[in-house]
Structure formats: C-alpha cells, structure tokens
C-alpha cells in the first residue's frame, strides 16, 4: 500500500516564477495538509484541504494557493517566488478527523535562485 507520494522530489526555480507541487494521499485518506519546512526549522502549516475545499489556513500570503481533486490528490501553487520560499514542502494526509493516522510524504525540495 503506497503511502503519501509527492512530486517532484527536487526542483529549482527563478525568482518571480510560479511553481506547482503535487501530492497523492495514502489510500483511504481524504484530507491533505501542506507544510513548509525551512532549513533548520520545524514544519509550518500552510493549509488543509478536505472535500475539495480549503478547510484551514496558516499564516501564509495569498501567493500560496492550493487545490484538491475528486480523487483527493492535491496541488500546492506558489506564485511570484521569493528567495525565502526555498524550503522543503511536506504533504500529509489523514482521515477526515485527523485524530489518528497522519502520514507524511518525503517532500519536495524547492530552491529559488
């Protein structure tokens, strides 16, 4: 049974560009959360999607947006990239209540130059 799959694993973008990261949740999970982990820091919550809608959002600007598809997979979009957006982006899936069974992916390493 595949866990959480994220793609790509690494990518390099230029300041001002736009990027899309993708996440396929674990089988049986319908909720997807995204986290940003800067170097040497703990992950910070970006937002969570459930039933194709953003259910909860952290303290991130509107440049960060997302989408959830009917098959529960999700995308994270970042517009007008800044150098400070360089980080590991983690996706975590869970059942709707989230109380148990969070599963994280291995992340996408984004470098903005």
């Amino acid at each position, binding site marked *: 049974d595949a866990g959480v799959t994220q793609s790509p694993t690494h990518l390099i973008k230029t300041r001002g560009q736009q990027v899309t990261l993708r996440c396929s949740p674990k089988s049986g999970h319908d909720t997807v959360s995204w986290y940003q982990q800067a170097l040497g820091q*703990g992950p910070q*919550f970006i937002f969570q999607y459930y039933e194709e809608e953003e259910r909860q959002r952290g303290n991130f600007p509107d440049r960060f947006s997302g989408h959830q598809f009917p098959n529960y997979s999700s995308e994270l979009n970042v517009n007008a990239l800044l150098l400070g957006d360089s980080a590991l982006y983690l996706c*975590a899936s869970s059942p709707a*209540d*989230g109380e148990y069974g969070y599963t994280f992916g291995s992340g996408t390493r984004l470098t903005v130059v």
Partner: protein
Amino acid sequence: AQTVTQSQPEMSVQEAETVTLSCTYDTSESNYYLFWYKQPPSRQMILVIRQEAYKQQNATENRFSVNFQKAAKSFSLKISDSQLGDTAMYFCAFMKLPNTGNQFYFGTGTSLTVIP
C-alpha cells in the same frame, strides 16, 4: 497561539545508552495531543509516539517513552537502548483536538546522533 520549544539543537548518545530529548509548549487549551516525530535523511516524518493530554499515564512504544507533565507543559522523550537507526531529527509537535483545528505546531527540532 500555540508554541512548541525544543531547547536542545543537537544531542549525541552512545549506542545502547539512554537519552532524553526535551520539549516544552505553551497553550491555553485544556485538551490536546502531543507527538514526537522522527525525520531521518529520507525527509519523511515518522510518528514515534503520541500522548493525549487527558490521559495521566505516560505513553510508551517499545524503546520510546514520554514524561508528560501537563501543569509544567513539558513533554520529554526518552529513548532507551539507543540504536544507530535512531539517528535523525526529532520534532515535538502539538495539535488541538480535531474539529477545533487539526494542524500540527512543531518545534525547531533536535538532531540526535547515535555513536557506535
């Protein structure tokens, strides 16, 4: 707002010895969950142990156990019989009860090295 503090950026322990990682948190919530996650070089966050705040009994999971002091808002992780595979970053995390905001609040992590 919830905050999680890990005051030990780096720690090391001899193989087979015991090590304790510290974590404190701040919250006005009375019911919540606390977690320890392990992040090896593969980057995937792996759940080590979970504690429900309403349970007084400390959680244990094989070689891993916690010392949960609710009044002091302290949540330390003890690793017994340390193994080379325990080398990783360890993150302490807080979560409010589901339906009131089920996002993790993570600390800044402790890098643990197990020395052969």
